[in-house]
Structures are given as C-alpha cells and as structure tokens.
C-alpha cells in the first residue's frame, strides 16, 4: 500500500520537476495555442526548409546561450556528465528535419547514454536524472530539476530504479521563444553546427581533476606548513634559494594578547591539538609534567600579555551584523578552504577544511575584524589571504565568526606580573616558540633562537625519529597521519633536487590552496561538495558565471601585466562571480606571473596582420554591433552591462589577453572553456556571418581584435542601448535645468512644474521662450559625451515664442539677433516653497520679477504668470510681449487665441495689442510705469 503511494508520488514529482524545469517565459491564454503547438502543426520538412532559408544563425547562437532556453546548461562541447549530449557530436548525424524534431519532440529519439532514470531511495526520496557514473557501490546522478547538482546514491540505498522513456529535454522548449522567427533562428544555428561536422573529441575538463599531488611535492607543502626549516635549517642552500615561495612564518605575537582572549591563549599553548584540532601548531610540552605544563603555559601567556599594547576586551556581538557576516562567509570564498556551517554554527565539512577552532572562545569581535581586514599584518605569509573585505564587511564577518555561545564566557583577566613575564620569556625561548614566532623585533628573536643552533639540518634527519615518530618526547608533536609522514619523508629524500618551473607552480598553488577554486591541468577545481557555495549574480552566465576560471594554460592566455594586477593589485574582471579572488601578497605569489608565462605556451595560431588597421577596426566595430555578431547582446561594454547578462567587458579584452589566445578562443570557445555559454560563431571553422570579409574566420576575428585594441576608446557599437534619462518634477516639487535648449542660446533655464506644465526661460534675452505640457525633459544631449547637444523637452503641445526680450522700449526696440540685448541684465532667481522660480532681471533702471505657477482650471493645466516691474521714476513708452505666433485673434475681452491652441488671458487692468512684426504676430501690453510697483498677470491655457 505504502509502496504504491510512493510510486505514485514518484510519477507526480517527476511531472512537477519537469514543469518547473521549463520556466514559462510567456503568459498564454488557454484559448491560444502555444508556439510549440503551432509549430507541431506544421510539417518538420517545411520548418526545416524555412529555417535554412530565413533563419539567422547569429541570433540563434545568442538564443542558444540565453537563460530562458538554458541549452548550454545541458549541452556543451567537451563537457562530461551533463544531462544532454555534446551537440557537435550529436547533431553531426542529423538531417535538417531531424533537428526540428529534436527540439519539438525530444522524446522521439533519445541519444544513447542520455536516457533518464527515476530512483526511489529507501529513505523515500525520489530523484530523477541521468546516470553519469555507476559502479558496484554508488550511482552518480545529474538531477533533472537542478542540472548544476551531481548527487551520489549508494546502491544499497536504492529501493527502485526505473528507466524513463521521456527525454530529459523539456518538451515545450519552443514556448520559451518569443516567436516563430526565433525558432527558425535557433534551428539555423543548430544546422550551422551540424554542417560543421563532428568536432574532434576533446578531453573533458569541466570536472574536478581527480589527480592528487605527488608525495615529494606534497611533502614540501607540509614541510612549509609546519615550519620545519625554522628548527632544521636547510643546508642545501642552492635548493633553498631556488624555492620561490617564501617560507611560511608563524603568526606575529606582538599584539596577540590584544586580539585573543588570554585564557584561550593559555589553554591553546598548553594543548594546541586539543583546543584547535588540526592546527599546524605543534604540541611543545609533551615531555613536561602536568604542573610544569600549567606553569609554562601560564607564564608564556603572561609574557604575551605584557607585549600587547592594549588589553584584551570582549565586546558585544551585533546580531544583524552577524547575519550579514554569515552571508558573506558562505559566499565570498571563505568556505572554499574553511568549513561551511549549519544554522547552529556547527561545521559541516570539517574533515576537508582548514581548521578554525572555536573562534568565539578565541577572539573579540574587534580583534577578529582587524585581523580579517588586514590578515597579512599578523600573518605576513599570506596563507590566510586578504579577502578584499571592506572595513564594514570585516566587522560583519567577525560578528558572525566570533559570536556564539562561547563568546559569552567571561574571560579571566590575566595580568602581567614582572616575575611571571621573565619566566614566560624564558619558557618561550626554551620550548622553541621563538623559532617560529616573531614577538617583538628581529633582534630579540635572534637572541631567543636557541634550538636551531644545534638541531640537525633537513638533509641530516633520521626520518623515523623525533617529530616524524609516533612517540612523544623532547620534540614538537604534530598531528600527522601516515600518508603525511610518508610525504614528508619523500620530500626530505628529495630535498636536494632542483624543482622545475612546473613543480614550482604546483607547489605555490598547493601552498596557497589555489586549487580549492581553480583547476590547472590535472589538479584542483571546485569540489562537488563545495560547489553549491559558489554563487553568481546572474544565472545566465552558466557555470562560468560562478566558478573561478581554470588556470590551465593561463600563461598563454593572460598578459603578464594583467596577471600581476590580478595577483598583486586585486584587479578583477568578473563582477558576477561572488567568490572573490583573494590577495596573497606580492612577496608570496608574484613569482607566478613569470612562471606561468614561461611554462604555458601561447596557442599556435597563425594570424594575418592587417594592412589597413583603420578599415579593419571599422569592420570590427560592425561585427561587435547588432548587425554583426552582436557581441554586446551578452557582453558588458565600457562598464555598461548587456541586457541579457554581464559577460566580461569587451573593452578590457585587449588589455588582458594575448592575441593568440583570443584567436583560438573565438573560433572554438567550447574547446577552451567547456560549458561556456559563449556560442561559436565559426562552428567547424566556418563563419555564420558569411557576408562580412568573405566569411574568413581569421579576418573576422582579426577585425574584432583590432577594434578591441582601442580598449575603452573603442567606438560604441551599434545597438548598444543607452538608458534614457528622464528629468521629471517629483514629490510636488518643480525641477529645473539650466542648459542649452533648441532656439534658445546657451543660457536657457527649463522648469518642469509639478502640475504637468513646463517652460523654458531665456536668461540671455529675458523672455519666456517656450511652454509645453506633460513630462519635463531628456537632458541626454547635455549630460552625455562632451555635452554638446541640447535639452530635449519631453511631453506634448510645445509652443515656442519669438526671440527678443519680453520687455523693451516701445520707441527704440532692440533689433533682435542671436545676441544679448544691451540694456537687459539677468540678476538671478529665487524659488518658492515648491521650487518654482521667480526670474529677476533689470532693464535699465527697471527691476523685473517674472513668476509663473502651475494650476488646474476645469481639469486643464494652466500657467499663471505674474510680472512685477519696479521703477524708481516714472517710465513711459514700454511694451511687454506676453505671447507671439503665426496668428493671433481676440476671442473675448482680454482673451486671445494664439496659433491654433494657446489661449492667453491678460488681467483687466491692462490693455493689449496685436502687433505684426512681419514674420510673426505679437501680443503685447503697452506699459507706462508710475514710480513703485506695477503688476501684470497673464494666464496661458493650451
């Protein structure tokens, strides 16, 4: 009974999983047949013929990579273990018609080896997916519902395994497309791939490498990790000099007792392996009695307390900050080396992680955040890298890590007592602490270093005794297992051998744990276990969007200067990868720049140089733009992300990459980055855009390269969409912009009123220059590039008025030109409580204030203008123009129709006239000003 229920559940879950997998892009009403249904109604032969004729391979290639289709999630050249087959292989055998059917009816023919299965576990869990590996004990399955996830199920746990006759490929994939044309484009791209013929099989490289480090090299890593040379000096001087990674230094202890709880210090010194399992600090007191051990650890702690300038102070944990810190810890890359933690703070992968111990007992929040912000000031050897945390991020992380139950423990204050301090100093030297730790400065260190003087050199060691034996005695005891001991022995046997450049790279990458994130050749890569902690800001980028790049052949890819900036100066190019590339310090890792360059050859491609760089660049510009290969559909250009995804900035390519690598990558991206969402535009070496440069792939890539060499000075490609700028009145406040407007000089001032009317004043000719309704303005013309354009009024119903000042002498008016009238002087403006301006200016001795407000009258916006003129003495023969237009006629007393739509009403205190100046009609108010103030009111409706 129960079993039937579970099987039913299994079927149901599969259906749900499949439906979820196909995310619906378009809402469909039930009455309308979907695109898939419509396409299925046509014959595959006719669809195939149309695709061949009218499909656009470039658009298809980009569609292929988009997230809504997610083709590359399951189909990738050279990738292993995915849900779907490598299309270069699979398509080669297919006819046009079969390609159409493969999309519309995926279950019709399922490629061999890609059938999916449903598994019911004993625990009642149901999983559907493709078996990618299988042996007697386990089955590795890639899940249908989450193609990123690879799960392993023990054979013993399987209750039932059923083959599925349905393809893992979603049935209604075409419904993710916008229209029929997109379907034809996609099919055309697949035809282009099919036509290119089967690609040579390439070794898969997406998976984590399975190789492990040779013992002789691993042993060297351990020799370094445990600081063996600090006591056993390296007598093979030539070899020592040849080791490019500077030896690891133990933490500087000068201010340790400020950062670290002295109580913890004491416990840790007394029994390091117990307090912090997995620490590289050896136990130094195995040969002492319990009493002596107690005395020594207390004395040393008091000595360390005496060195610290500030006493240790435990501070409160900020819960909000800690929550942010938790997020950081699990996303920026901390858990590449350290163990992730569950909700209770318990480590979930401590076995495979660099131990942290209980940080809540060890650190204060302030102490830990200081360390996290500048780890190299305490641990200069860079094994704990600088994660490029901001000050505030370091605090958040410290609140998370140093928080927890133990942080509530009251630490017993340990005071520095002179007699204890001296004893501590002696113990510190006698027990050999000073061999590894810097406490004060180099001078005292030398005095303290007693042991190294009479201990055997590395090459003289008996590798079965002392530190490498199981027993305890008058030597440091490390937490080593047999394989580690064997590796150390192998390294010691090999200590005189010169390491070649490849070994140096491996040694460096292992020492700094680069392999936790990066694969290089047969080593390293993100483990399946930790894969889920590598996040992206944009899923469209596929695995490349979240997994740090492979370093195989990186010396042939990146220019040394760029490599150095990444390694030493913290430069990064992939803002979408949430895991940060940490900083290890120039002294520790800068040698990799040269090593990579010397070991990794640049790809062997022959490149034809161009004879006309300018013309070539123009073609490159065309190719990058919408009419060409539309690179900007996915790639960022000059910090402006593309609409689909923010793939690496095109304008930084030439600065980063070797030309040879670029050529090779462009022609076959999947070869170099298996699983990349970057489509090939030259499948099989044949161009999809055949009409440009005769379809010659090398010339096309060369043109793109030549264009990209311009870097950030490269001309903006066609189709790059600039975000429109709209400047609008908001929150009941007027908006202004003082710039160039069409038909106004450079001294235009636009105002957008909250009530939906706008005007522009000309502060050179002192006139109301134009009015319009609706939205205010697009300032793009003056806010973009050098600012050589004009502000473009948005909205509607724009009415312009004639040039020349509104107020002038009736008898001797200024003869209007483009310039500035001689007797008018702008004196500024002031704003009312909602930001509406009153313009102020002078005409000779007359002071003018011109104030307009917006209003609503019978549901229509209206502009009410009040002009105040102030004269000291009587002034006659003035004229004020209130409007101008092709036609003006009186429609009522004091009311006029200007042009077709503008109604102007003048207050009854003033008479007005219509004057014909030849080209335009002007509506003017003759004025005689008595001493004092005169006010003129005008209303504009349109």
């Amino acid at each position, binding site marked *: 009974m129960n079993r039937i229920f579970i099987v039913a559940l299994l079927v149901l879950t599969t259906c749900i999983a499949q439906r979820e997998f196909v995310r619906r892009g378009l809402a469909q009403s039930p009455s309308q047949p979907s695109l898939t249904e419509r396409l299925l109604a046509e014959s595959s032969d006719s669809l195939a013929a149309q695709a061949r004729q009218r499909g656009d391979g470039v658009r298809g290639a980009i569609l292929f990579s988009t997230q809504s289709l997610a083709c590359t999630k399951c189909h990738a050249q050279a990738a292993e273990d995915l849900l779907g087959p490598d299309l270069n292989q699979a398509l080669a055998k297919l006819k046009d018609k079969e390609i159409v059917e493969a999309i519309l009816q995926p279950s019709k023919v399922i490629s061999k080896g890609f059938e999916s299965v449903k598994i019911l576990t004993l625990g009642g869990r149901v999983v559907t997916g493709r078996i990618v590996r299988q042996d007697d004990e386990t089955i590795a399955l890639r899940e249908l519902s989450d193609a990123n996830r690879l799960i392993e199920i023990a054979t013993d746990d399987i209750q039932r395994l059923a083959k599925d006759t349905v393809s893992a490929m979603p049935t209604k994939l075409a419904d993710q497309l916008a229209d029929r044309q997109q379907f034809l484009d996609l099919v055309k791209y697949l035809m282009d791939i099919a036509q290119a013929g089967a690609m040579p099989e390439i070794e898969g490289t997406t998976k984590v490498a399975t190789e492990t480090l040779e013992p002789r090299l691993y042993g060297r890593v351990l020799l370094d990790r445990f600081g063996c040379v600090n006591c056993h000096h390296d007598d093979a001087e030539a070899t020592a000099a040849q080791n490019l990674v500077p030896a690891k230094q133990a933490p500087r202890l000068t201010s340790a007792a400020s950062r670290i709880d002295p109580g913890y210090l004491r416990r840790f010194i007394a029994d390091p392996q117990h307090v912090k399992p997995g620490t590289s600090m050896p136990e130094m007191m195995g040969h002492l009695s319990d009493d002596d051990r107690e005395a020594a650890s207390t004395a040393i702690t008091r000595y360390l307390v005496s060195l610290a300038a500030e006493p240790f102070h435990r501070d409160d944990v900020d819960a909000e900050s800690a929550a942010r810190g938790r997020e950081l810890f699990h996303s920026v890359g901390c858990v590449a080396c350290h163990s992730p933690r569950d909700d209770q703070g318990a480590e979930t992968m401590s076995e495979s992680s660099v131990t942290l111990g209980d940080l809540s007992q060890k650190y204060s929040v302030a102490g830990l955040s200081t360390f996290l912000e500048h780890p190299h000031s305490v641990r200069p050897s860079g094994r704990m890298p600088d994660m490029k945390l901001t000050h505030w991020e370091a605090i958040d992380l410290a609140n998370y890590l140093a928080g927890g139950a133990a942080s509530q423990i009251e630490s017993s204050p340990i005071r520095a007592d002179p007699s204890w301090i001296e004893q501590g100093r002696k113990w510190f030297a006698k027990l050999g602490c000073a061999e590894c730790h810097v406490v004060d400065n180099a001078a005292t260190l030398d005095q303290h270093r007693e042991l190294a003087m009479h201990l055997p050199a590395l090459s003289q060691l008996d590798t079965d005794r002392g530190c490498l034996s199981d027993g305890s005695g008058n030597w440091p005891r490390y937490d080593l297992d047999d394989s580690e001991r064997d590796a150390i022995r192998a390294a010691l046997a090999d200590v005189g051998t010169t390491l070649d450049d490849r070994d140096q790279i491996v040694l460096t990458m292992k020492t700094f744990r680069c392999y936790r994130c990066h694969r290089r050749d047969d080593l390293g890569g993100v483990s399946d276990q930790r894969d889920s902690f590598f996040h992206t800001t944009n899923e469209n980028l596929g695995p490349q969007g979240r997994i740090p790049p492979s370093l195989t052949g990186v010396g042939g890819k990146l220019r040394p200067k760029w490599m150095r900036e990444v390694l030493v100066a913290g430069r990064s190019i992939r803002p979408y990868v949430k895991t940060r590339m940490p900083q290890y310090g120039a002294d520790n890792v800068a040698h990799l720049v040269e090593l990579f360059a010397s070991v990794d050859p640049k790809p062997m491609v022959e490149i034809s140089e161009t004879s006309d760089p300018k013309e070539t660049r123009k073609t490159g510009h065309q190719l990058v733009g919408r009419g060409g290969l539309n690179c900007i559909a996915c790639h960022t250009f000059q910090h402006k992300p593309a609409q689909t995804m923010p793939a690496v900035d095109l304008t930084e390519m030439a600065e980063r990459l070797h030309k040879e690598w670029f050529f090779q990558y462009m022609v*076959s991206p999947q070869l170099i980055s298996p699983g990349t969402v970057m489509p090939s535009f030259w499948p099989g070496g044949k161009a999809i855009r055949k009409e440009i440069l005769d379809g010659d792939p090398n010339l096309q890539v060369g043109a793109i390269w030549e264009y990209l060499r311009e870097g*950030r000075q490269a001309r903006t490609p066609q189709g790059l969409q600039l975000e429109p700028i709209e400047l609008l009145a908001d929150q009941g406040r007027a908006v202004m912009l003082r710039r160039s407007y069409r038909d106004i000089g450079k001294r235009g001032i636009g105002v957008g009123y909250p009530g939906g009317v706008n005007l522009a004043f000309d502060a050179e000719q002192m006139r109301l220059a134009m009015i319009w309704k609706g939205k205010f303005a697009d300032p793009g013309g003056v806010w973009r590039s050098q600012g050589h354009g004009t502000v473009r009024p948005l909205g509607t119903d724009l009415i312009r008025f004639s040039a020349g000042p509104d107020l002038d002498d009736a008898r001797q008016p200024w003869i209007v030109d483009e310039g500035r009238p001689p007797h008018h002087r702008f004196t500024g403006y002031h704003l009312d409580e909602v930001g509406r301006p009153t313009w102020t200016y002078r005409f000779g001795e007359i002071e003018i204030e011109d104030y307009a407000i917006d209003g609503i009258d019978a549901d229509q916006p209206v502009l009410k203008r009040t002009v105040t003129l102030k004269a000291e003495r009587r002034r006659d023969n003035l004229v004020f123009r209130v409007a101008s237009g092709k036609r003006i006629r009186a429609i009522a007393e004091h009311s006029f129709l200007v042009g077709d739509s503008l109604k102007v009403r003048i207050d009854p205190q003033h008479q007005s006239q219509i004057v014909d100046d030849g080209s335009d009609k002007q509506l003017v108010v003759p004025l005689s000003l008595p001493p004092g103030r005169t006010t003129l009111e005008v209303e504009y409706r349109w």
Partner: protein
Amino acid sequence: MRLNTNFLLVLTFTITMAPALRAQTLGEYWDTAEEEAKYYKIVEIPIPEDAAIEAGSFEVLPDDRLAIGTRRGDILLVEGAFDQFPQPTYKRFASGLDEVMGMSFKDGAFYITQQTEVTKVTDEDGDGLADHFRTLSDAWGFRNYHEFAFGSKLDPEGNIWVALCLSKSYQSDEPFRGWCVKVTPDGKTIPVCSGIRSPGGIGPNEHGVMFYAESQGPWNGSCSLKVLQPGGFMGHPASFRWYDLAENLDKPTVQPNTRSRLLTERKRVKELVPYAVVFPYIKMGRSISGFMVDRTGGKFGPFENQIFVGDFSLSVVMRATTEQINGVWQGACYPFREGLATGLLACQFTPRGDLIVGGTNRGWPVRGPREFAIQRLDWTGIVPFEIKQINALPDGFRVTFTKPVDPTIASKNDCYRLSTFTHVYQQGYGSPEVDQTTPVVTEAIVAQDGMSVRLKIDGLVQGHVHEFDLAPIRSAEGGKLVHVNAYYTLNEIP
C-alpha cells in the same frame, strides 16, 4: 589540454606595416601604482547607486561636510566623506545648474562658477535647500558648449577669478572667450588677462598667487600651470579682439609669430607670460585639471605647501612646486599617484589632511574606467622616498628629497641623467619636444643631513624643460625612489 592541430587556423601571412597613424593613445602608465599604494592608498567614497555624481568642484563646509558641485548641475552636501571608513550620506542642496566648475563657501553662502555665470547661492528659509540664486556676473559671451568656465575659490579680497575657455577651444567668437576675469564681491567684473586656450582648473599657487591649468593645443606645446598675471598674455592670441571691452588694459601692440619659441616671442611680445610649469605630454598627464595646495600641516605626508594637480585623461595626481626667479614664475612637476578610477576634474584637501579627488570620464578619452567616481587619497603615515622638490640655482639645481640619500651614491655625477627640450610655440596643435640638449652634472654636493643635493651643471638652457632621471639614487636605507623623474621649466636662470 590537448589541441587537435586540424583545428588550428593556418592562414595567410600578409604582414605590412601599419601606415596610418594610430588613434591617439593614452600612453604608457608610470607603472608605479603598486609602490605608490604603500604610501597613499585610494579610498572609495561610495556614491548612492542611483546617483550620477560627476564632480567638477569641491568645498569643505565649516561643519565638516563635503560639498560637491557637479557637471550635471547639482550641489550635493555629503556627511561622513572624511571618515576613515566612509559610509557617507548625500543630500541635494541645489540642482539644475550648468556645470559647476568652481565653488567656495563663506558666511552661509555658496559662491559658484557655472558655465553661464558666477552665482551666489543661499538657503534663506533654512529648509536645507537652496532658494536664492543671485547672479554676480555673467559678463562673458557664451554660445558654444565648449566655452567652459573655471572659477577659483574666493581670494583673500573675496574675488572669484574665472578662466574662460575659447569658443570650441580654438577661436574667440564671443566676448572674453580666452580671458581671465575677476568678479568682485559686489558683482563687478574686471578683465585680468588674455591668451587663455582651454583651462582645466584655477587657484592660488603655494605662494598665494593666482594660477590656472592650461591644456595642450594651439600655442601650447603641452599642458602647463601658468600665472594669471594682470595685464598679461597667456599665449593664445585669438582673444586679443576683446581688449576694447577691457578699459583697464592695453592691447599688446605686437602679435606673436607662429613656429617660434616661447623664449623668442617673450622678447617680442612683452605681455607674454612664460608658462611656469610645463607638464610634458603623456609623461605628465594629458589634460591637467583642478589643483590645490597642501595646507594640511604635514597630515598628508612630506609635501606640505606643494601643489597637487589632477589629470583628466590619465586619471593621475601629480605634484608641482613654483618659485619666482628674476620676477618670473617657474618650477617643477613630479609624478605622484596613478590608478584613479575616473577622469579627474577637481581635488580638495579635507580637514583630516586627506585629498579628495573626483570627476567623470565622459566625452574625451580617459584612462580611468568608471563613468564617475569620488575617491580619496589617504597618507598611510609611511614617508615615501621621493624627489621632494627642485629649485634653480645660478649654476645648477638643488634637488631635495623626502628622506636622506645614500651620500656615496648621491655624490656621483653620473647618478643624475639630465636632458632638456622645449616646444615649438605655434598656432598648430601641440608640439613635439624639440631642441634637445644633454647638460652635464659637474659636481654633486650632498648636504650634511643628506636631505638635498646641490648639482653644478654645465649646459643649463634658458627656456627649456629640464628633465631629471634619478634612477640610481638610493636612500640612506638603500631604498629606490618611488618616482625617478621630475621636470623643471627653466624660464630664468637665477
């Protein structure tokens, strides 16, 4: 990874030399950023995500807020920009202005220079938003977008000096284009001097004398800092046509000849003021911009009372020092810090003694990748080993360092590689470096304290830029110079 050779592209070789000139590049980096970062770190002043802040001018308010005037016409007030780990809050005080390229604050009022005018801006109802904009002067013509106006901060008399760019940066189509005018507190506009081409910044030098930053172009072989000498002529004659409007000044009676030398023309055109500090093109910026004197009293490191000047194209900050010899201003420039995020337009020392820089990269080629940014240079407290300054002597130069030099090395004559050049003074755009000579150091006398070296030189050339390469010099501790070059413009030999 194994590659199948079938797959490699084997294509024809058609190598030819590129005949066309490459588009103007932004040149090579100094490649000193990694070292510079040990002494001066770049601190990001975060900008709200939805804001586009293209700084054109800065001011510090009495309440320790930072005021930013922008190209887009805002005045923003920023709280917390000077904090060690800034998380500032921004408030818009005014908006809708026209390229705010100069700003001071005094007695509750902002005095700003925008393209159209000099304006006094106040908040009279106390609601935190500007409400009065009083035009102090708009006496100059303005009909082309490139007619930029750069205004100084208030001088001790309360005047604002405004450097007015030529029309389209080539002609003087409108009144006072290519002039400096002084706007007094009561709104009078006094013409100061003619001959400006395309200014990028304006302010006092370390002796309180008003200077401006000029860009390479016609009549300017390279960028330079020039003194705004009243009645003087700054080198570009297009602006001569407005002397009729300048009742206080006399028009030069002689026009400069093109394809000449500045030193030659100085003797013919008595108003021509020699360019005080020439910044060799690309080596020392490509469009020098806003500058400010370090009055921090040592909080910014060992360069107190020196001029710090940004560059728009190369996103770098440089230093300069000036001195007056025989009545003529001259001096040297020195590399300081590269790798800023955007094109720099303005800089401002903070009360804590850090240097705020900012700007935008739009419109012209700029090395800094970001559209706009506000950043801060903080001294780490570690003294870099640098050429602190160079002064002219009758028989050579005195080179002062920031730390004692190794006297043995520093007393060797061949540790000082000197070369000189000048530019063609011409109507055409810019100039190559010409008339090169190689002076010889005949004696290097290290001062007792090791802080300076007196160089006796055979072959000083008046009117030339003297280029120093001090790569072999070491500090007493054995350290290398962070920057090995400096450039002294020797208008006069004392």
